[in-house]
């Protein structure tokens, strides 16, 4: 059977407990010996509402919003539900009541007491009491006849009696139980239960069985037993439909019988074998809640009788409902003989009518024949009438046993049983505890703590800083009722929801302000509430219920605002980055559908992540969102999985830790307060048995390590792989930081690089030891050139000549690349650069533009040289420049060519052709001619370049030089624009083409012999340049920093070595980026060119317009082209080779 036992959870302190559901089945209500009544929204409810009703609670009953409890002060009290306000005392006994119960309508309450009496009290007039006297020992339990005529009670005197309520007389009595002198000593609680609806049967737990007595005749008509039940049954409960009976025993065994067939349909054992002392059936069936004497609450879900209570139930019922599996089910069903179906066929038609209308004719003696239909009926009886119709059919079908399952299915199940939509998670502040708490953390982040108090005496907010150097602690009265807060080094941001009279307010305490006004406040438009807010560096953001995200400067100036694609979940800020998570749509079956946007402000404003889905664990929700201290976006879901944005992998999210792995208990969690990449730390607060910490005692922060979920991390290999990739991932931020113009810890960076190389070397040695030479080479490909030489040495020493040979080939290839392609210098730090591009995309593109311009100038000068020298090879830049120049000239001049289609063609041709030509030339990169040219170029360039010495070394170096000046100032250069206008247009195209070509080229290069390879390399260089030029700026600086003494060529070699270590994937992504960038650049350049033309063109405005148009055409053509051109190019390359 498909019942699913959910893990128990702590509910009350040790001792007797009781449980029931509210009328709608929405809440589970428990009571315990700690005197509390707890109202649980579900088993997973971490914060159940507690009502204290006395020192101890012995029993409770709930109906019509009135909660009746039997407390240790000898009274039976009423509380309202769910508010929990006391609503008077219903009755009193001379000692405590032991069991209370409602009648079916909720108009009366029966209470049994230790003073041997049973009282029946009218709910609405507690003076109208009926007292049933006759038991000679404390009452164990009472139960109403659903028809309100009788009442049954069990007592410690060993008898079970039935009373006529009106006459207050005993109708009958059976001596069924063992005698005892008190409830505590009774062997069983003997909770009686009267069958609902039909009211035909009274179930009495007797020892290990349940005896069924028939109404009116008061004769025993059946016994339910279970072979496995060896211990006395404590409680019994009927399913709401009256067809099933659940029982909980002393030994923790939960059994569900089908009463007609007397078959056990469900059997579960308590996970710890504690005594079950409370048992309640969900009003819609399908779920049983139970409690034990240790105060734990458990739920048995997915019982056969419901189809609506929860998604799991739904799914389990679906399987059952599917006619195909239906029969199987019954075959499986315990000891049911196979021939049963036949007898059923004969029996059930007769019974059907009654069955559907009512359960009147339901008699246990009917036995198995009716089992199936009854079962079925039960499944649906909870649902609507429409279901019942379907049910009829099904029963018929079933009886005839001929109808194909598929046909039966369609009419049968009109109710939607597909995936159920998940309620969307509410907006929250990462690092805050739930708003309904009286004492809560409104924010706990790496700067400090904001605590909110909202109790009788005080409504206040405390702000405290981890580092008292930032600011002293603050205490604010919270007269506005702020509910959300954020805290940064500069300010405290608070917001409150609007009320009928007052608009939602945003309040900022800008404590770092240098003037005397440290505070500002903004009212939001009527009807718009702040739902989430965050602080960045110099700005604040608030997401509102109107799906608008509003930006403010930290001083209170309103800035941009924009619409969000969906209701906000939370937002986080860091530096100039803003991370927004919102609902993309409706999730199903427990999943949330969240989208994420990452925006970058500052000089280059752009969107880095464009609303992609946020990858959460299954059936989890977002529980924390933020940035690492280094500025990498990061989030944690409710399953405890920490994911970090991997900027070097196309902005994908990489799981870096599962905090739940570190938890000791099942209900323990870690509550995140901060993430640091260097040192690698997850700072969180361990919470025992909850998801978030209390404010007192003050929780202590713990530090968790990162751990990538790689395979086989128990093995040495797995460990090293994990370390390597963790190191790579967690040092991505260097690239990002440097690209966004922050100072980076060069030492740390080089240390990280060293560590990575060491790990590679270790892995290399390990795979050598394991005779995995292929793998060794793969690892060697990740290494820098220096380390490869080490690897060669290692291989040759360990007498693996084949391996050493391959490695030396590899080293050679790398060296070749170095010499051939100076641009590779830039690739030295490829991963970093990638990240830079991603993050600092717009910036770099602008820089690139600037570079291009310079290079174009150079090229223009060089052109002459080129023409003279023919195909002499330039450095990448040279090539690019040439191509650009050629392409540019037509456009720049605004000649006839530009407006027409042909013009793009020539350009493209040039772009394509040039690379190759150049490449052929490039093969001889060292040639004097090239250098001459370079120097020429350089002469022109010198002014801009910072290092004159570098000029001499090589064209590549010149490229670098050009770039270097641009690198440092992150902002694009206005100067270059005018000059570069001519060149701009072409460069982007060339870049595009190159980028497209690159993959093909790379392949060629690798496969081919050196001479052909060199052209390919050249091409690649060009590509690199296109991508590179942006990149070079950064590279150059780094290289110089690392090797201040190196000459340019050496630097380049070094760079090549490093570049080699990059994986093919990395290179690919690199080229792709280059493409994208170049596209952007192209657009920019076009515009510029247009301007220039306007100014300079002799032909006048009209022509300029034309040219612009042509440019536009061109750009569009380009945009379309990439694929075509790339295909052509690659084809061309192949042909050539």
């Amino acid at each position: 059977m498909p019942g699913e036992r959910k893990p128990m959870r702590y509910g009350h302190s040790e001792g007797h407990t009781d449980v029931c559901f509210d009328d709608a089945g929405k809440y589970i209500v428990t009571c315990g010996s700690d005197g509390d009544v707890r109202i649980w929204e579900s088993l997973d409810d971490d914060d159940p509402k507690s009502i204290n009703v006395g020192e101890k609670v012995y029993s409770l009953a709930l109906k019509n919003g009135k909660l009746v409890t039997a407390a240790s002060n000898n009274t039976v009290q009423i509380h309202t539900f769910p508010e929990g306000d006391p609503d008077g005392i219903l009755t009193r006994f001379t000692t405590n009541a032991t069991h209370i119960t409602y009648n079916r309508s909720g108009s009366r309450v029966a209470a049994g007491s230790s003073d041997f009496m049973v009282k029946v009290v009218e709910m609405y007039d507690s003076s109208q009491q009926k007292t049933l006297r006759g038991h000679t020992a404390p009452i164990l339990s009472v139960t109403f006849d659903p028809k309100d005529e009788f009442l049954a009670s069990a007592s410690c005197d060993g008898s079970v009696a039935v009373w006529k309520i009106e006459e207050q007389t005993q109708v009958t009595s059976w001596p069924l139980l063992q005698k005892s002198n008190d409830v505590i000593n009774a062997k069983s609680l003997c909770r009686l239960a009267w069958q609902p609806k039909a009211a035909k049967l009274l179930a009495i737990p007797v020892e290990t069985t349940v005896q069924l007595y028939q109404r009116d005749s008061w004769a025993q008509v059946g016994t339910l037993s279970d072979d496995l039940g060896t211990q006395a049954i404590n409680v019994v409960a009927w399913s709401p439909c009256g067809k099933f009976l659940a029982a909980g025993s002393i030994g923790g065994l939960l059994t569900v019988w089908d009463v007609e067939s007397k078959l056990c349909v469900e059997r579960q054992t308590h996970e710890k074998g504690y005594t079950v002392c409370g048992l309640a059936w969900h009003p819609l069936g399908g779920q049983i809640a139970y409690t034990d004497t240790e105060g734990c609450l458990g739920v048995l879900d997915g019982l056969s009788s419901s189809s609506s209570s929860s998604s799991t139930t739904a799914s389990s019922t679906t399987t059952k409902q599917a006619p195909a599996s239906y029969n199987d089910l019954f075959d499986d069903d315990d000891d049911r003989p196979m021939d049963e179906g036949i007898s059923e066929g004969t029996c059930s038609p007769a019974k059907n009518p009654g069955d559907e209308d009512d359960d009147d004719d339901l008699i246990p003696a009917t036995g198995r024949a009716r089992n199936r239909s009854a079962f079925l009926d039960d499944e649906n009886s909870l649902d609507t009438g429409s279901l019942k119709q379907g049910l009829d059919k099904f029963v018929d079908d079933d009886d005839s046993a001929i109808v194909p399952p598929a046909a039966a299915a369609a009419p049968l199940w009109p109710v939607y049983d597909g995936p159920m939509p998940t309620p969307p998670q509410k907006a929250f502040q990462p690092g805050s505890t739930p708003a309904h708490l009286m004492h809560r953390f409104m924010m706990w982040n790496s700067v400090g703590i904001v605590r909110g108090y909202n109790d009788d005496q005080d409504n206040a907010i405390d702000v405290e800083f981890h580092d008292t150097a930032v600011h002293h602690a603050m205490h604010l009265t919270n007269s506005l009722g702020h509910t959300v807060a954020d805290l940064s080094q500069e300010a405290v941001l608070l917001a409150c929801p609007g009320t009928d009279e007052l608009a939602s307010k945003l309040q900022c305490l800008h404590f770092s302000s240098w003037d005397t006004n440290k505070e500002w406040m903004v009212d939001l438009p009527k009807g718009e509430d702040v739902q989430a807010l965050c602080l960045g560096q110099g700005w604040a953001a608030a997401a509102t219920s109107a799906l608008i995200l509003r930006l403010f400067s930290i001083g209170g100036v309103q800035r941009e605002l924009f619409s969000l694609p969906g209701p906000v979940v939370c937002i986080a800020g860091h530096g100039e980055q803003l991370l927004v998570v919102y609902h993309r749509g409706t999730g199903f079956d427990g999943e949330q559908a969240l989208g994420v946007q990452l925006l970058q402000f500052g000089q280059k404003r752009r969107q880095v992540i464009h609303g992609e889905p946020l990858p959460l664990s299954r059936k989890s929700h977002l529980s924390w969102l933020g940035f690492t201290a280094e500025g990498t976006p990061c989030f944690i879901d409710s399953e405890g999985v920490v994911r970090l944005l991997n900027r070097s992998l196309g902005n994908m999210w990489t799981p870096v830790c599962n905090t739940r792995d570190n938890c000791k208990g099942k209900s323990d969690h870690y509550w995140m307060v901060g993430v640091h990449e260097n040192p690698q730390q997850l700072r969180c607060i361990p919470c025992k048995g909850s998801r978030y910490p209390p404010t007192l005692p003050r929780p202590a922060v713990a530090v968790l390590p990162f751990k990538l979920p790689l395979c086989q991390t128990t093995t040495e290999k797995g460990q090293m792989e994990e370390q390597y990739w963790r190191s790579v991932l967690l040092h991505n931020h260097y690239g990002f930081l440097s690209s966004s113009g922050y100072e980076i810890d060069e030492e740390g960076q080089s240390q990280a690089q060293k560590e990575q190389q060491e790990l590679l070397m270790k892995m290399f040695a390990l795979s050598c030891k394991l005779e995995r030479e292929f793998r060794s080479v793969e690892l060697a490909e990740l290494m820098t050139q220096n380390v490869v030489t080490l690897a060669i040495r290692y291989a040759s020493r360990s007498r693996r000549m084949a391996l050493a040979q391959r490695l030396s080939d590899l080293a050679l290839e790398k060296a070749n690349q170095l010499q051939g392609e100076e641009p590779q210098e830039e690739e030295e730090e490829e991963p970093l650069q990638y990240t830079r591009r991603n993050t600092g995309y717009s910036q770099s593109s602008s820089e690139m533009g600037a570079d291009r311009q310079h290079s174009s100038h150079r090229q223009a000068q060089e052109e002459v040289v080129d023409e003279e020298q023919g195909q002499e090879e330039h450095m990448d830049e040279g090539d690019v420049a040439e191509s650009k120049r050629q392409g540019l000239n037509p456009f720049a001049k605004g000649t006839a060519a530009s407006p027409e289609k042909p013009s793009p063609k020539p350009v493209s041709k040039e772009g394509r052709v040039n690379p190759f030509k150049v490449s052929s030339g490039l093969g001889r990169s060292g040639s004097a001619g090239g250098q001459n040219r370079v120097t020429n170029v350089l002469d022109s360039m010198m002014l801009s370049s910072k290092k004159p010495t570098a000029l001499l070394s090589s064209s590549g170096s010149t490229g670098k030089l050009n770039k270097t000046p641009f690198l440092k100032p992150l902002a694009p250069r206005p100067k270059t624009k005018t000059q570069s206008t001519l060149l701009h247009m072409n460069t982007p195209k060339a870049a595009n083409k190159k980028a497209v070509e690159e993959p093909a080229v790379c392949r060629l290069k690798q496969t081919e012999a050196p001479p052909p390879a060199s052209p390919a390399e050249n091409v690649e260089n060009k590509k690199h340049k296109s991508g590179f030029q942006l990149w070079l700026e950064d590279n150059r600086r780094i290289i110089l920093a690392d090797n201040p003494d190196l000459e340019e060529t050496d630097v380049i070699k070094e760079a090549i070595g490093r570049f080699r270590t990059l994986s093919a994937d990395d290179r690919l992504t690199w080229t792709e980026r280059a493409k994208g960038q170049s596209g952007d650049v192209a657009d920019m350049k076009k515009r510029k060119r247009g301007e220039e033309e306007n100014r300079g063109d002799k032909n006048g405005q009209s022509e300029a317009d034309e040219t612009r148009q042509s440019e536009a055409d061109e750009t569009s053509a380009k945009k379309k082209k990439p694929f075509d051109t790339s295909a052509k190019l690659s084809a061309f390359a192949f042909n050539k080779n």
Partner: protein
Amino acid sequence: MDPSEVEFLAEKELVKIIPNFSLDKIYLIGGDLGPFNPGLPVDVPVWLALNLKQRQKCRIVPPEWMDVEKLEEIRELERKEDTFTPVPSPYYMELTKLLLNHASDNIPKADEIRTLVKDIWDTRIAKLRLSADSFISQQEAHAKLDNLTLMEINTTRSFLLDTLNCMYKLRSNLQPGSSGGKAQDHQ
């Protein structure tokens, strides 16, 4: 040995603090401390913790055993057993004194803890006196006591040794000639 010297030794024990300032690692003869990150727990010797606490530069996280429930357990055990039970820390008394005197605001239920530790201390000292008494009265030559802390030994040392010396002198003076001294001593 002076009690203050014992306390001095106890100050070498490590305790967790949560600093509210940021400082790089500091390198001392006794070892490196830090780095100190605001809000992040770090282990430092008690002397430094107290110093920082006095300057309001940190919050002290009480040691794990400094908890009412755990101490109650220890107290019960100590009362039940005739011998000395192991204590949570070899410097439990000193640490309790130091921390409660200087950082009681960081320790929940400080008063209860103080009482509990005092109870434990009293119980143990009583046992110590008792055993010293039986040691002397039975005229044993040697005895072994496990799980005593330095401070406890220190409280009884000077007095016990002096007493023993004194008794020795008295006894040897009492019967300069007789040889079966001990048996008679007893009477």
